[in-house]
Structure formats: C-alpha cells, structure tokens
C-alpha cells in the first residue's frame, strides 16, 4: 500500500496530468461532475457525480463514421484518431462496477471497437466511500463501497490518501508517481473500512435484496400484474436511463453537415415511445411495456445472459432524479422478495 499526504494531492494531480489527461470529480453548478484537470481544480467533497462515469467509455454522442457523397458515389471514412491515454480519478465503487457490466455488453463478440479502444486507454482510480448516502444500495449487488474495483483503489482519510494498485495498468500509474508516494501500512485503511461498514449497516436500503429476481423467473415476472400500478405515473422522460451508469441502449443517426454526412451514436432510452417503432408498427405501444422492459432487462434478462449478474449497481441516481419518485428500489420491493 502507498500513501500520500493530503496536502500533496494537488501535486499528485499535476504529476499525473503531466503524462496523461486526468479527469476528476469537481464541484459545479447543480452538483459534482467529472472535468479535465487543470491547475487549481480540486476534488469534490460530494459523494458522487450527478451523471455517471459511463461517458468516458460510452460517450453521450460519438462520431461512428463519415461519408462523402459525390454524384452516385459514396466514400466511407473512419473518423477515429488514436485515443490518448487518460486517467479517471475518484470513481466510486458503484460506477467502477458499472464498467465491468458495460464490458459484458460491449466487449463480447462482436466487440465494439470504439468502446474497447477507450477502455484500453483509460486507467481507473477508484475512491472508497466514506459517507454513503441514504439512496445508496450497492451492497444489494455485492459491491463493497469500502474496497472498490479499479486499476488503482484509493482511500481518503483525514490527513492522507492511500493507494493500492490492482491491475498492471494501476502498477504502471503508481510507478510513475513513486517520487510523491511512499510505502505505508494499511492500518488507517482497515480502520476506515470498519468504520464505514458500520455506517453502511445502518443505511435505509440495507435490507433490499435481489431475492426473487434473476434469469429463471422471466415469464413470471413479465406477467406480474403489479407493472400496471408501478408504471402508472411514469412520464417516459428517460431521466433514469440518462443518469444510469449501466443503461447502454443507443441510437445511430446521420447528420448532414453541408459538406458530408456524419453518422453518430447517441444514448437512447427504452423508455421512449419511438424506441421500438417500425414502419409497420410498434411492439411496445404503452408506457407500461416500456417501463417493464427497462426493469426486466436489469433484473431478469441481463442476469439470464450474464451468469446471474444484475444490470444495476445501486448508485441511487435514479432514486434522486426521477421526477415522480419511481425507481428500481420500489420495483424490487414490489415484485421481489419471498413471494416469488
């Protein structure tokens, strides 16, 4: 384990940013967000960013291809230039897990090379949680907020920040910082873990379980009558999918720039009415069906295809942001549990 005095944190950021692009969560209007580090920027005191960290690997919009049209002829251009190496500092345990969930979508055959390219160039420094919120329920999905996944895991105490490399990428990053960080024993980290775990035991969503969900209850859950009352107030605004770290549905659209066509991939939402609309009809015409699709995907379909892993990390963003206060916790409490 390595250690850095907290007062040295700006120097550490500067040292990382000297070699690679560094992103970190900073305070901004409306809440914390990831920004590119420049001198003077400091780590937010907020627990987490308003938006998830999925943008780093699956940006909200991205240029997939370009086309030059001349008469009857078309020229196809791959717009990608080599992606630069970057470091994302301060990713929380929930968002760190979301990357491995997104990997199960984008890195399975046939591989999404846009995503893969970014994954390969990015180094994740995750930051253990010290003050989890009442909307947090990562424990439900077996995530340890006191020991998050990542290339490097960091723990921030009152006077220091501790690091542990967990991958080769992480080793390389810490090796580059050897002038700043020093060897340390893990006593302080252990103490913090124990203290935070006590807090987590008292979280209001501590008792939430995945019991009753999984890949083997597909038709039973699909046909549950409760979807009607659960979805009744849903506005279909898509905010939940927008802030969700694991929602990965996308649209592909062309834009005529006036001097060529640009093809973009943009985030989309299964909550929208035109998501499945075809020239001859729409298989999901009601908000009930669209609402059900989103939760069935996370709690049943995704685990069916991924050895029981759920498509939710318990970050709580949808709890905080849904305008009608509907969320996955209510769905799980209504449809899950022992009554299955």
């Amino acid at each position, binding site marked *: 384990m390595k250690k850095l005095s907290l007062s040295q944190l700006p120097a550490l950021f500067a040292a990382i940013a000297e070699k690679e692009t560094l992103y970190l969560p900073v305070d901004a209007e409306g809440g914390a967000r990831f920004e590119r580090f420049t001198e003077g920027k400091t780590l937010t005191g907020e627990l987490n960013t308003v938006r998830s960290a999925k943008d780093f690997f699956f940006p909200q919009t991205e240029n997939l*291809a370009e086309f030059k049209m001349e008469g009857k002829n*078309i020229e196809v251009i791959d717009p990608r230039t080599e992606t630069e190496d970057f470091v994302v500092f301060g990713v929380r345990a929930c968002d760190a897990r979301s990357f491995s969930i997104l990997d199960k979508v984008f890195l399975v055959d*046939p591989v999404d090379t846009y995503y893969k390219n970014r994954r390969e160039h990015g180094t994740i420094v995750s930051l253990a949680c010290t003050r989890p919120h009442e909307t947090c329920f990562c424990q439900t999905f077996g995530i340890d907020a006191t020991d998050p996944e990542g290339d490097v895991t960091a723990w921030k105490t009152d006077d220091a920040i501790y690091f542990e490399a967990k991958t080769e990428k992480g080793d390389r990053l810490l090796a580059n910082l050897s002038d700043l960080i020093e060897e340390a024993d893990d006593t302080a980290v252990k103490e913090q873990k124990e203290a935070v775990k006590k807090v987590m035991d008292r979280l209001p969503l501590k008792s939430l379980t995945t019991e009753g969900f999984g890949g083997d209850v*597909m038709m039973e859950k699909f046909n549950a009558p409760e979807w009607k009352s659960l979805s009744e107030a849903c506005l279909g605004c898509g905010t939940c999918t927008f802030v969700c770290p694991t929602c990965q549905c996308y649209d592909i659209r062309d834009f005529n720039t006036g001097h060529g066509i640009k093809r973009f991939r943009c985030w*989309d939402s299964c909550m929208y009415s035109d998501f499945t609309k075809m020239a001859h009809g729409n298989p999901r015409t009601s908000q009930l069906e669209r609402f059900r699709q989103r939760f069935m*995907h996370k709690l049943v379909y995704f685990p*069916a295809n991924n050895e029981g892993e759920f498509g939710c990390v318990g970050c709580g963003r949808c709890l905080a942001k849904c305008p009608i206060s509907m969320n996955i916790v209510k769905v799980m409490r209504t449809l899950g549990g022992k009554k299955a």
Partner: protein
Amino acid sequence: MSDMKETLIPQVVTVTDIRVETPDVKTFRIVTPEGKKPFEHIPGQCAMLSVPGVGEAMISITSSPTNKEFMEFSIKECGCLTTWLHSMDVGQQITIRGPYGNGFPVDTAFKGKDLLFIAGGIGLAPLRSVINYVRDKRADYGHVDIVYGSRSKDDLVDYKEIMEEWCNTEGVDVHLTIDREQEGWDGHVGFVPNYVKELGFDVNKTAIICGPPIMIKFTLAGLQEIGFDKTQVYTTMELRMKCGIGKCGRCNIGSKYVCKDGPVFRCDELDELPNEY
C-alpha cells in the same frame, strides 16, 4: 462475424440491377465496386443497408449463398430509407454491413427433411434465400412445398422466378393463393392460413413461415391443428434494429436479441419469450 474488424463501419456497394416485382416491392442487386459479392452469408441472415444521410435499416438477404456473383434484396417501400431506395437508379452506391443474425439451420436441422415453406407478401424475401439454396443442393433435402400468398396477383414477389424456375424444379410443389378474386387469376383464392389447412400437409415436414405477424400467428395455429408440433416450425422475426450486434438494445425481447440470437427462431423457442414481437 467475429472476424469483421469494424462492424459498425459499412462498406460501399453499387446497385447493378433494379427489378420491379410489385407496385411496392423492388429487388435490388448489389456488388462491391470491384464487382464482387460483398460477403458470404447463411440463408435467413440479414444485412444493414444504408444511404448515408437518409437512414440505415436491417433487410433480409433474398439471394441464396449459392449465388457467388452478387447479392439481392427485395424491399417493400414503406419508410424513409425504402422510399429513397425505390426512387434511385442503377449505378447508385449505397452502403452495407453484415451479415447479421443466425440464419436458418439449412445444414443441420433442415438436412434430409421434407420442407414446407409458407410465405405471405414480402415475407417471401427471406425464404427465397433458403428456397434457392435448397434447389441448388436438391439432393440434400426431401420434398419441397411452397405455399405463397399475397393480396393480389400483382403483389406476388418473384412471380417470374416462381413460375419459370421453382414450378419446374423436380420435387418442388408450388401452391399460390391471393386474398380476393381477380380477373386473369384461375389459381386459389383465400388467406394463407386457411389454404395451408385445406392443403393438409404430412406432419413429418419441417415448416418455415414468414409473413405479416397476424399471418404467422394464424398459420402456426393452423399447422398445430393439423398435427404439427411447434418444434417443427421455424419463423423469422422483424424488430427495430440499429446496431445488428446485440448492443443497442432495440431488438431485445426477453433474454434474446433478435439481431444476434435471431431473426430465425423455432416456434417453441418463442414460447419462452415475452410476447413483444
């Protein structure tokens, strides 16, 4: 599929022939700028066709893989992209990526079997690929029946090929039907599901259905009535698709992605999925 390095970046192909099939269906023949077929495929597989700036859509490949020269797509005019395609001329370039999907089990489950093809309207497009594959490898399959129906005689796709080639292939029986009486038509009149029941096929056959959802539903019910089991019946599905590789989420039904795990399903497999197609 895994050997395709950039699956979301299409390649350019040139339209070398446009055949008017019906008032709203045309068949487009395409080759690469070098004059070659863009890629190999399995009958039942699809490809993403696009006119940049207009749109991109998943279309079933209607030509047989045994055709080594070119690839064909029979396309009904019904949306932005298809309307644009219908108004273009020979020589136009478009883009293609694929092939996508599982295709029909032509070299496994279908082998040696008597095959019963049942199509309605533009639903013949994906089946034509299998029918011509089977005709080209005639010795590998048993007797072939083709039941094909459309609204009118003028709406029968591939009419010339059906009459001149399919009807003259040994071991192939073609049964055509149209929805309503029409002058100059002395064939059968009536809907496909009823016609299938009237014809009353041997229940040892393997059936392959494609057409409007309502036709598939009633035909499957009709086949079950005359003794077919769902495990003997295959169909191919259509849903909105954007990526073709099971990632964009649009064609997700239950634990399946129609673009990747389908579009071909055995009808008993559909029973295990939510009815959202």
